């Protein structure tokens, strides 16, 4: 495995001449734009990591005249707060990414689904949007962006639940296939991308894929914005090149007593101290949408797990059995074991249940509950039992 070490970079937030980039993109063909993104190796920054170029290519290939670009700004993963910062500081790059995506795929309409709690950002975002619309129409773009507000449900960050929500329905994930690239928002071909992905795409168009691939590893190209919280002397937003180990990360951000790092939020993995050195942060190791939570030895991993399970029990949409009931069983189950009302071996049954949830749940939410559950139970079993 490639190990790039820890390098701080400043690409996402750096100022650029957006008009220049938009003009450059306007002069490129759809194929040129998509190839540039494909060559960059960019993977979605929301956490799932689907290759962005492929998503764009599939959407572009659809014959349907009406298509949509959706920006997923429903940043809800516990411990993630990078999109808020991006929107606050460089939203014009988000808009730019959407318009370029629209041009590449033949879409004229974009929607930004904004987390309900970020409503306070709107006045500034609208101001920027007005300027942006004016600028791109001068260049010749035929693209328009609108905002849609979330209302606090974590599940609405799931792409198809997000579409349902925009369409005015209850936010529940759909069956896949069809995938959004074929039938997404309003049943039209849709490319849905994370805020940071769109900004990165602008960066790639600006600097060229060749420049971009110099950053990161084979499986995890580029840099990424991390939201760092927990037991750290320097919490906050940091842009880092991909490919570092958890150990290198802890050396920089830990408080000297880090016993575990939760990579990727509640739906991510818990990396214990003994695995810090061998674990790469990225798609070859533990992927993350940006959330990095450090825990020192004063923390009870039972409490951490309980908190996550409580969260999922509440935030599951409730539609499918494995997720709706499974979350409750995991939560009640660890409570029983902790209280000594169930044998510690009951944890083994719960681990099997977590495996079932991973393979049988309808969407990514239920499928990822087992990540935190298993990695905490397996690495901190004694803290759950005693």
């Amino acid at each position, binding site marked *: 495995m490639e190990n790039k070490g820890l390098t701080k970079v400043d690409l996402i937030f750096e100022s650029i001449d957006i008009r220049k980039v938009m003009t450059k993109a306007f002069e490129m063909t759809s194929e040129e734009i998509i190839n540039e993104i494909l060559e960059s190796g960019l993977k979605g920054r929301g956490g799932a990591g689907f290759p962005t170029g492929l998503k764009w290519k599939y959407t572009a290939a659809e014959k349907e005249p009406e298509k949509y670009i959706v920006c997923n700004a429903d940043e809800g993963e516990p411990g993630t707060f990078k999109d808020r910062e991006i929107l606050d500081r460089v939203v014009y790059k988000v808009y730019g990414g959407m318009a370029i995506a629209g041009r590449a795929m033949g879409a004229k309409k974009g929607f930004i689904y904004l987390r309900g709690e970020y409503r306070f950002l709107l006045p500034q975002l609208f101001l920027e949007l007005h300027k942006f619309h004016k600028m791109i129409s001068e260049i010749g773009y035929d693209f328009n962006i609108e905002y849609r507000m979330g209302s606090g449900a974590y599940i609405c960050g799931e792409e198809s639940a997000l579409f349902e929500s925009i369409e005015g329905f209850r936010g529940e994930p759909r069956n896949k296939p069809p995938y959004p690239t074929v039938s997404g928002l309003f049943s039209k071909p849709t490319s849905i991308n994370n805020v940071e992905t769109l900004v990165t795409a602008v960066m790639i168009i600006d600097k060229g894929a060749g420049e971009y691939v110099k950053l990161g590893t084979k499986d995890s190209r580029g840099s990424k914005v991390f939201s760092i919280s927990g037991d750290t002397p320097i919490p906050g937003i940091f842009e880092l090149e991909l490919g570092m180990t958890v150990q290198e990360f802890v050396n920089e951000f830990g408080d000297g007593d880090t016993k575990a790092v939760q990579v990727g939020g509640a739906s991510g993995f818990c990396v214990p101290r003994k695995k810090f050195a061998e674990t790469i942060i990225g798609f070859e190791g533990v992927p993350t949408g940006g959330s990095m939570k450090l825990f020192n030895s004063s923390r009870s991993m039972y409490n951490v797990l309980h908190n996550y399970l409580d969260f999922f*029990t509440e935030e599951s949409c*409730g539609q499918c059995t494995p997720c709706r009931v499974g979350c409750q069983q995991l939560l*009640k*189950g660890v409570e029983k074991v902790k209280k000594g009302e169930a044998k510690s071996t009951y944890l083994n049954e719960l681990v099997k249940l977590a495996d079932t949830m991973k393979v049988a749940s309808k969407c990514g939410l239920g499928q990822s509950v087992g990540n935190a559950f298993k990695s905490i139970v397996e690495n901190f079993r004694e803290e759950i039992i005693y």
Partner: protein
Amino acid sequence: MVTLKINDQEVKVAEGTTVLEAAKKLGVIIPTLCNHPDLCVAGNCRVCVVEQKGARTLIAACAMPVSEGMDIHTNSLKVRNARKHIVELLLSEHRADCTKCYKNQKCELQTLANEYSFGEHLFLDLVEGHAYNIDRSSPSFTKDDSKCIRCQRCVRTCAQLQHVSAIAVANKGAHMKISSFHDRPMSHVVCTNCGQCVNRCPTGALTEKTYIDQVWDAIYDKDRHVVVQTAPAVRVALGEDLGYDPGERVTGKMVTALRQLGFDSVLDTDFTADLTIIEEGTELLSRLKKVLVDKDNSTALPMFTSCSPGWIKFIEHKYPDMLPNLSTCKSPQQMFGALAKTFYAKKRNLDPAKVISVSIMPCTAKKYEADRPEMRSSGYKDIDFVLTTRELAVMIKQAGIDFRTLEPSHYDSIMGTSTGAAVIFGATGGVMEAALRTAYELVTGKPVPFKNLNITPVRGMEGVKEATVKIEGTTEEWRFLEGAELKVAIAHGLVNANKVAKAVSSGKASYHFIEIMACPGGCIGGGGQPIPTNAVVRQKRMDAIYSEDMHMDLRKSHENPEVVAIYEEFLEKPNGHKSHELLHTHYVAREAY
């Protein structure tokens, strides 16, 4: 065509076929729960998960379209483990008081539990920790959330088939439940009581409110004279709950069984169905006359039929401005009820206070209809108890009657004679056909110009049907209709009813007469009919209805001798004073949520 392998057997199916359907073709059974052939795919119970070679996760067979080269295994270790977990999870949130449950041995979750969950339960009981609500507010059904497994069949039924959405999903996660507008009781929302959700609920979460014990009490009470009437659609469906295949006509056996149960008189709703045709046909013709001859703008056209209480409640909620378009005729059940405690009691020399009137209906909304305050024209509650087809089957079983060996017998009289026109009330288009058979003949003196009186354009399962009947050769009295083209429409299932009502409301449709039945297929597909009810079953019941019609000696309502007699002896004339007192009603505008 797409070729795939299921359990190592190759199968070729059309593109767009689901894995579930492809498996069925091979005779491979994949268990399902949220899936229902009448409804859109949900893919939410996950009971049907199967393994697809190379896929990261298991896939829901009901929701996954086939693709070339798929390699599916439906019974691998991974699948069995997951399926067992899923069934166990469902059981952990389901109040499994099976022996006390109305759906015992008819519950789809119970069937799955039999196959996948025996011995110790794997997981913790989640029922006790929840404050579940049992809603008994509707006179038609009970909604017990502690038995709900959130498959959303009811929600999809209410939205997709009925365009009502009285129930929908509320809350999320552990608190997700099937609820109503503002969590109001079911009696205080747009619910039409049609019972389509009850018919599709896989567990005991939605069940008809049963009045079996009350009926037994009445039967055993020697002071009471208990009359029973049976709706047209019951006789072609009851058999299904008693061991027959769908489509079996069991009219004669049913009559014998009812007599053996101890009813004092076994009578037929078909009698009042014939009477409805006379009353409603007269009403239609008089409306036409008022509009065409008297140029009376206050008379509402088109006229909607009013036999279906689910439809009545629907229009009261959704299109209250069109209530004048509803025929004022009561439904056959309620005409029967009003006459049972007046005409019948008088003829039989009975104290109406001691007559108990029971009806056997394919319908749950009929329970609600009987409870309406308008339905007390006899001075008493016109219909005391309404039982569904399913409840009658339960009573027959309780009484230890071996249904198959029964000798068929005939209905009692009076109010037991009927025609083929009445029995077809049970299928969509039937009321229209019966009305046309009579009205055409009344106006022209000749039978309707269709072979064997079978007016095929108004028959069939199409959601909205339209037909035009040209009236020619009118008699003197009806000369104003000469050459007129009577435009009719028929809709079944409230989603289709809504389409027609919307077209009428917006002035886009120019019909004269519209038949509407709340349930898909009409009463044969009623909410109170045997479970399962689906397209195949509905078609078989419909075929049986028309076959019943063909086997009747009389096939036009106005030729029913008892109908002729009741006008001579009691009612005097159609739409007359007495009719209005007993056989007609009025409607109530209701809130839209």
